[in-house]
């Protein structure tokens, strides 16, 4: 991957939310590159700032409640310098979004066909008939049976899996070069999850779209993503290729995430549980390592007070200098084996 392939370059992004007249960063000086035609997964516990990140890219935040600084380079422009009107030309056309809950992501009073077409009205010059034709084609692409019929159905007439296909259809309607998928399978049951994952992979292959895949499901990550970025308390703590990461996670938080999953090899044993929860924005300790309060003590003689994100091998970045000394009780060397086994039971 060369620099020419970079589609999106997030530089020093800080997104702060207003809580009682004060602004607290939910994303703190974040850097991330997204290349053409790749799937980057963003993982982390609930509340760590994944959605805040995805929403920042598209300027989806409420303007008065949010402060954003940094740069978001996309195809030669800085999206953060764009006005809302300018962003409307990017949203849906260049970058689009897939939302978590297909029950609420669709307008209950509008037939789904119209919801798919809507973006085309603003981004293309297609006539009404052409738009309808295109919408039906897209319904076909997301594998909806009887697309002509479904075109004029309302969301409540469709099953959850079908609705998520509609949400995806909306996202791909204008063939964007980047899709931000915020937990696209979390609200679905397991068998449907698998089909949606297959669909996304196929669409990505065909349309050469890049996807930022926000999830807390490492099973989905191993199925879909090329690279992974682990987020903790508003910072990336580890970024690397998925295959290597799953074999050899370096950051203590990444390890904890992996070891807290059930697998064949730890059946019947107690799972590793990370103690505590992600602190809320206004209670977060912002000095030093943010994960420290949740660790079982560190050896201070070898411990670095404020670790920065460092490249420890090509393309593998970690925000912790003492990861080598870190040890988790009950940890298994399972990750060396077939990763598919590891994620069974997901």
């Amino acid at each position, binding site marked *: 991957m060369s620099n020419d392939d970079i589609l999106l370059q997030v530089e020093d992004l800080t997104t702060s939310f207003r809580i009682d007249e004060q602004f607290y960063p939910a994303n703190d000086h974040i850097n991330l590159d997204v290349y053409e035609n790749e799937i980057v997964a963003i993982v982390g516990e609930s509340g760590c700032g994944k959605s805040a990140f995805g929403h920042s890219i598209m300027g989806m935040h409420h303007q008065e409640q949010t402060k954003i600084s940094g740069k978001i380079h996309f195809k030669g422009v800085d999206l953060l310098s764009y006005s809302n009107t300018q962003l409307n030309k990017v949203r849906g056309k260049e970058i689009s979004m897939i939302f978590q809950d297909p029950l609420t992501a669709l307008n*209950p009073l509008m037939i789904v066909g119209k919801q798919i077409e809507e973006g085309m009205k603003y981004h293309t010059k297609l006539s009404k008939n052409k738009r309808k034709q295109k919408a039906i084609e897209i319904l076909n692409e997301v594998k909806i049976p009887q697309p002509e019929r479904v075109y004029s159905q309302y969301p409540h007439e469709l099953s959850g899996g079908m609705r998520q296909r509609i949400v995806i259809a909306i996202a791909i309607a204008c063939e964007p070069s980047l899709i931000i998928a915020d937990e696209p399978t979390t609200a679905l049951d397991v068998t449907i999850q698998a089909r949606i994952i297959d669909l996304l992979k196929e669409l990505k292959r065909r349309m050469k779209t890049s996807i930022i895949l926000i999830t807390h499901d490492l099973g989905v990550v191993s199925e879909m993503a090329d690279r992974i970025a682990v987020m903790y308390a508003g910072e990336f703590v580890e970024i690397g290729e998925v295959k290597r990461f799953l074999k050899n996670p370096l950051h203590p938080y990444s390890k904890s995430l992996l070891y807290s999953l059930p697998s064949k090899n730890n059946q019947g044993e107690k799972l590793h549980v990370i103690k505590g929860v992600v602190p809320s924005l206004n209670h977060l300790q912002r000095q030093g390592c943010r994960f420290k309060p949740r660790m079982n003590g560190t050896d201070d003689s070898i411990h670095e007070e404020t670790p920065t994100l460092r490249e420890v091998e090509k393309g593998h970045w970690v925000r912790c200098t003492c990861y080598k000394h870190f040890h988790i009780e009950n940890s298994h060397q399972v990750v060396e084996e077939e990763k598919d086994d590891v994620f069974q039971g997901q």
Partner: protein
Amino acid sequence: MWKFVVRRILIMIPQLVVLSILVFILAKVMPGDALSGLVETPGVDSSTIEDMRTTLGINDPVHVQYLNWIKGLSQGDLGTSYIHQRPVLELLEARLWNTVYLSAAILFLTYLIAIPLGITAGRFHDSLIDKLIVGYNYITYATPLFIFALLMLFVFGFQLQWFPTGGSADINLEPGTFSYYMDKIYHLLLPALSGALLATVGTIQYLRNEIIDTKMKDFIKTAKSKGVPEAKIYSHHILRNSFLPIAAFLGYEITGLITGSIFLESIFSYPGIGQLFLQSISQRDFSVVTALVMVTGVATLIGTLLSDIILSLVDPRIRVE
């Protein structure tokens, strides 16, 4: 769609039966009957009255009386007013239409005022304009209708003399002519405006809250992520969803109008059923009271029917089972 409407109308039948039984019981427990007024009349002795009671069916078993009453109702026989000595139907007809006009005018003005205010408050919520509108809402909510109506009558009717102070039309005008209708509207305006200015509370509050809620919904995010400009997000997504509770509220609104008209019509000496209702109660003209209760009940049922039909038109989810 049509299936839904037919089914919904069928539901009204048992509702009407229950309503009629309630009204019938009400009529029965009221002291006296259509002939009690004659008891003291010189020259009529009690055995004659008893005979008349038998001929009129008042001594029949209750269920026979009920069925006869229903039969009469279906033929438009609402009984006879013993104060006016005229069939109740005749007494009601003209006044009923007056009340219908007044209510329609109030409803129209209410929505005319409330919908723009509700939308503005919801769209710019927490801004100065929103605070002003909410302030107006608190004031109108706390203001009693009869005091406000009296004040309006005093200021605009008697002091400024911009509006007539009573009646429903100038008696010198030929009914059916253009100027007659204009005069009717002129007579309506002040009472309608007085009612409407206070009736806006519910609609404004509902619309405002609904818009604020809908703005936060996920499908609004979906629309924004498609690149839909904000104005279009409002017109295509937020407003339609926000009008649902307003439509659902219509039936309730109509009930409120009828209660409201009792005060308004008395204060503005407007010859409608509200005014008649108060008069009849004070004169113990029970056959009229009973008929009016029945009419109001039916109006309420029709109001909820309308609500449901409108709702089913806007909301596809309601059309299915």
